[in-house]
């Protein structure tokens, strides 16, 4: 049995949410779709500081603990966004939905933007941090060559990018122990007013047909030397551009 962890960018998203909580005294709910083992990830979320946690789980969603990558079968992003949208509506009174910019495994980056479209809420991607003033929110977005500040009103959906301002906080041992005792709410599709038959594998639109692992062809040539001086000198001769061209 493998333990599930929070996907890395989702942890950044939770950190941003907790920073908003510290600034505004809001409530933070950790929400995920998954199999029974996802409870561990939610306990981790509560140990970090989430006020409550909800697991959406349903036999029709076919979550299993895969032993290999190719066996991994789970709902596609369209399905996940539809389910999450229903859950956000059921929660009601949600001002801000934050999720990681992309999953830690298949990295599609679709659920966040899809969820915004499902909700017909504004969407802000690649968030580093947010500043909330009433209904008005200032968002710092990470760009390839810097950053930008955009303004948006609640409610909106944001996807979070890792940044020096949102390094996930560590949960203390005390908090981990306390969180492990707290309940995780379990919602089934019927609880969300959804017909499970409309969400099964036959309805999923995105499929992984094949997975392959590229094989490495050449070995690394280690530069040897009695001293670091000698190694550095050998390396210097390898950095001439013509050397590179002739080798490749």
């Amino acid at each position, binding site marked *: 049995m493998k333990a599930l962890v929070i996907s890395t960018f989702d942890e950044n998203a939770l950190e941003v949410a907790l920073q908003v909580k510290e600034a505004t005294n809001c409530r933070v709910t950790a929400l995920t779709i998954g199999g029974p083992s996802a409870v561990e990830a939610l306990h981790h979320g509560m140990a970090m500081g989430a006020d409550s946690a909800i697991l959406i789980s349903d036999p029709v969603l076919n979550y299993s603990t895969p032993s290999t990558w190719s066996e991994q079968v789970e709902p596609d992003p369209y399905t996940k966004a539809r389910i999450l949208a229903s859950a956000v509506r059921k929660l009601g009174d949600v001002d801000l939905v934050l999720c990681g910019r992309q999953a830690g495994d298949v990295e599609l980056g679709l659920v966040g933007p899809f969820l915004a479209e499902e909700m017909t809420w504004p969407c802000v991607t690649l968030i580093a941090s947010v500043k909330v003033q009433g209904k008005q929110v200032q968002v710092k977005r990470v760009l390839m060559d810097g950053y930008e500040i955009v303004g948006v009103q609640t409610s909106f959906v944001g996807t979070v990018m890792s940044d020096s301002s949102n390094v996930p906080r560590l949960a203390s041992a005390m908090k981990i122990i306390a969180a492990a005792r707290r309940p995780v709410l379990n919602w089934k599709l019927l609880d969300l007013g959804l017909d499970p038959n409309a969400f099964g594998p036959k309805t999923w639109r995105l499929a992984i047909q094949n997975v392959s692992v590229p094989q490495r062809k050449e070995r690394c040539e280690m530069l040897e030397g009695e001293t670091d001086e000698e190694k550095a*000198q050998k390396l210097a001769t390898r950095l001439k551009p013509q050397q590179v*061209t002739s080798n490749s």
Partner: protein
Amino acid sequence: MLRIAAIGFGVLTDQTSKPYHELLAFARVVASQTGGLVTAVWLGTADPDAAGALILRGADEVQLLSIPRSGIASAPQDNPAEAYLPPEHALIALEWAATQFSPDIMLLPADTIGAEVGPRLAHRIGGGIVTDVTGFGLNNAGTISWQRPIYGGKAEAVMIAQGKPQIATMRARAFVALSPDQNRQGKIMKSEIAENPPLRVTLQERVREETAGVRLEDAKIIVSGGRGIGGAEGFKELQHLADLLRGAVGCSRQAADAGWLASSSMVGQTGKIVSPDIYIAIGISGSSQHMAGVKARLIVAINNDKDAPIFNVAQVGVLSDWRKIVPALARFVQEHEVKS
């Protein structure tokens, strides 16, 4: 015949068009397998010469879409980086284009704007989308599949997304731009997007963090540091070496998250994708997420951990403390420069 739309955003000039030429090269790969027609759809403003060059670089025709009342319309041609195309305007324009031209395949760049607008467009128009693709496939039954790295570049997946049109965002540097072919000819058309809904997300400030000197994307040599550098102080030594090599300094996500270098210097799957001649990875463990951003002819690793995965991807390795190697290396490079 399949209609393939290759979509680009912003201010098109000779200087800004290189990534878009790479997208056109990908569009030609798709066209050669499907017998399709490639329409370059440029959203924003375009310099006439740069628009004409799109035909020479692989487009069969060009559609220039302008949004007269959007900020992008008044963007200064000489400073394209200042141009701002709100994603909401891009989305409206692409919905319009999808209805107007009914493309079978829409290709977008997997950059900051494409990564947001592509998925939202797919959701709105019922398209099937795969992001960050690096390849295209077509089986005998005519089913389109998309290749893309997963698990931080550890594996390659082939994905099938149901829906029409097929939408894909292309990973930067996945294809090499075609050389201009002066014999190619095609029409250049212009359209205006009249719709201009009030923006729900508004730009307040934009700050460029690009460091002085050679840009990472253009550098022939990149000196890159990771967790092993230990702090911002160490990156000064890397910068010194990079200056001597006329290269640029990059870093891993760990180093950027620690604040040792601006995140605009981050190389990797979620940072910049770079293609220098030589990539010198110093104190970088070599996670597949980091290496997904490195397309170098030669990868050199300096690390004091013999088990670091970086030695599995590097061609040349030095097993030692970088604090000893880098200053000596800088000296030899400098001496060599003096002699030559």
